[in-house]
């Protein structure tokens, strides 16, 4: 168990700067997520840590030990791949034992630890099965057991859940988080799904075009986005000119839809805005609606379902917003 230090790491493919001067420190036992849109360089950065991609510049250390110059198979890393990468020519137990055998662990010890790892991912008794007999979720559990069983210094996940269906994704991500915390292994997790990132991570690094956009705890990035990109990537938001809210200054402000309420449901001290309802969507637990303000701009609102509320397109409404939740963007 070690922290990870990434210093000035850069990698270019042709003219594409896939990773561009990244500096990061991941704490011991931390669950750290690289989040960003497709092509922003998450996988490239992860593969540099794993040893499958060369660095043009910079270095990577586990604790004080520099590892970016080591061959991949000596780095002591457990990696979980997007497409599972379960060896089809080995049984489930054979897959999980693979890394232990590479480490010359005795046969009895291998058997014991394989069984332990399999029950940890709730696959106890599946050892003799073949990969083609398992479902996608089970395959991913095998891949996780295989990575955990070697007790690596660092666990790496590259979009491990993206091939699973939506429900399984939600339950598996909780399991992964729980396992990581109970074993205390430092983990770096790559995803482009901000909800997934927020649910599992201690901290998130938001990436764009090979650079770090913002690093922080999930709630921090959500509530205090440092840039327009961060504000929009972390969830639906209203990007407004300050004067639309009666504020002064240039640039833009971000106001999340849930920071707005209907006049009757809001505390008295909140500033008011009025407009006409342009569109209503009742999604079950929450209702989303758009309000067109006097200056023509449209503001998005989200609130919990209220049985007695009636909202019709074209109706005149007054909105209130929480002034503490207005973020001024650079």
């Amino acid at each position, binding site marked *: 168990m070690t922290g990870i230090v990434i210093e000035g790491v850069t990698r270019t493919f042709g003219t594409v700067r896939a990773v561009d001067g990244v500096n990061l420190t991941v704490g011991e036992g931390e669950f750290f997520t690289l989040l960003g849109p497709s092509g922003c360089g998450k996988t490239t950065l992860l593969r540099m840590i794993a040893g499958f991609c060369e660095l043009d510049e910079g270095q990577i250390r586990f604790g004080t030990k520099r590892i970016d110059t080591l*061959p991949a198979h000596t780095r002591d890393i*457990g*990696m979980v*791949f*997007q497409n599972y990468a379960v060896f089809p*020519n080995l049984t489930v137990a054979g897959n999980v034992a693979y890394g232990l055998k590479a480490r010359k662990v005795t046969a009895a010890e291998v058997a014991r630890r394989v069984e332990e790892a399999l029950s940890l991912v709730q696959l106890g008794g599946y050892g003799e099965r073949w990969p083609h007999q398992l479902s996608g979720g089970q395959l991913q559990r095998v891949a996780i057991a295989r990575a955990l069983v070697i007790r690596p210094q660092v666990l790496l996940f590259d979009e491990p859940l993206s091939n699973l269906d939506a429900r399984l994704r939600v339950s598996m991500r909780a399991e992964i988080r729980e396992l990581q915390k109970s074993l205390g292994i430092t983990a770096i997790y790559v995803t482009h799904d901000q909800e997934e990132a927020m649910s599992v991570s201690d901290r998130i690094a938001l990436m764009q075009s090979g650079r770090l956009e913002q690093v922080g705890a999930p709630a921090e990035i959500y509530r205090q986005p440092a840039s327009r990109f961060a504000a929009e990537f972390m969830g639906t938001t209203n990007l407004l000119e300050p004067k639309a809210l009666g504020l002064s200054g240039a640039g833009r402000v971000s106001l999340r839809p849930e920071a707005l309420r209907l006049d009757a449901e809001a505390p008295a001290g909140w500033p008011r805005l009025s407009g006409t309802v342009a569109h209503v969507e009742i999604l079950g637990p929450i209702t989303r609606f758009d309000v067109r303000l006097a200056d023509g701009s449209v503001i998005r609102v989200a609130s919990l379902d209220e049985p007695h509320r009636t909202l019709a397109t074209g109706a005149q409404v007054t909105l209130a917003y929480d002034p503490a939740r207005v973020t001024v963007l650079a």
Partner: protein
Amino acid sequence: MTLTIPHQQRLPLAIAALGFLFLGLFLLYPLFNVFGASVLDGDGEKFTFANYVKILGRPFYRGAVANTLMIGVAATITTIVISVPFAFALARLPVPGKAAIVALAAMPLVLPSFVSAYAIVLLLGRAGVVTQWLNSWGIGFGSIYGAGGIVLVYTLTLYPYVLLPTMAGFKAVDVSIEEAAQSLGSSPRRTLWTVTLPIVVPSILAGGLLVFIETLENFGVPFVLAEDMPIFAVEAFKLFVGETAPNPSSAGVLGVLLILMTSLVLLIQRRFLANRRFATGARSAPPILKVGPGLRIAATVYCWSVVLLALVPFFAIVVLSFMEFRGPVLHPNFSTANFTALFERSTRPLLNTLMFATLAAIGVTLIGVPIAYVVTRLRSGLAAVLDVIATLPFAVAGTVLAIGFVVSFNSGWLILTGGPFIMVLAYTVRKIPFAVRSSSGILHQIDPSLEEASISLGRSPLQTFARILVPLMLGGIMSGFVLTWVTIASELSATVVLYSGQWRTLTVVMFQALEGGGGGIATAAASTLIVVTLVPIALLYRLIRRYELAA
């Protein structure tokens, strides 16, 4: 920036270096010497094109070029004309016994074509069984010696090169494309001509070009059937081992010209066909068409006739090998004398054949599979160059490569002539392209993240290759091994240049018996060769079947 080699590229680069070394020494260097022989004057000192002028100035050799090309074009056209309807019938018409037809249709690819040629001579030649029988009824027919017979044998032995890819092409056409055409108002017949066939054309042409190249390089078939007609590969052989005055420079000229022709065809194929593949992303295979009984019977008769006709010569050879020969003349009595005569003298040719095929097939596998690994896994110009060089033997006729071997390893620091290794090496080089092609086909389907998973779990790239890739490729490697083995066992064109003394193979025995008119021994050697070919193929089939049933 330092010039260290990234860890994950060390293994592929090391393999690439060994591959370049091997192919450089046993392919490029001999070919360079063939070229050298062709452009040096009599003393081997001055650079000159005089040899080219001399050879091309002689009508005999210009005739050889013309004959070779003409026969190649004719055989390509006949194979296409025969195979396209055949492929369509197999893909789209209700023909009974399709699995058997496809299995039988692939046989001519592994059976030695010169055996088929020899069978045609025994059946339809001047003293042929069928010829004599027909003559006794007062019926005569044209001579099968010369271009006609050669084209006939090429058609019967090479048609699978067009049939198999074309059939795959017809099956890969997505139904929805045909349905779209018909919903736009196109009749089924018009749809076939305007939509389906154009999609399949690249497959047809790719197969046709393979046929064309095979005809250019083939030595055995024209050797048996051409008689006085000059054919390139045969004339190169005669010039090189010529009894009167061996002439390496003239043989070199023919060799270089032959390589130029085949490379040109290969280049055409790469340039024009590589981009012309119409990926239709077939999700649902096209349906078997509903046709009337007339067409169904016609299609069935047609398919079975072609398949069986192509195998008749091989069958005939086996039957004839159990008959009595007096010199080249056949007598219709059962006899095992041919085999006694063949093996009485020595069982060495058979043992040599088995041994050489085994050694060379091992060599091909050990070199071809790692090269395929580099070609598919190393992202570098180096890999592309290695790929091209490893494909090159395909464009080099066996005769020409063998001439290069003799010129290169006859003297100097590495002397190989006169021994068995030169033959094994020549076979290995000749078959490497097939191993590289088939292995890289398999490797393309293996997800690289499996290798990365293994490496991240602590296995070095070399261990990962041995423990993950080799087991995953095993089925493919084994089939490749058997096919290589079988084709080496019946290799003739390089063998006849390279064999010496006790290192004769079955093909050499046949070749010498043909030259000396010993029909009995030739048929016995041919039948033995057929058995040697078919047994491993049958075993492979059973193995694959069992494997598939188990999985």
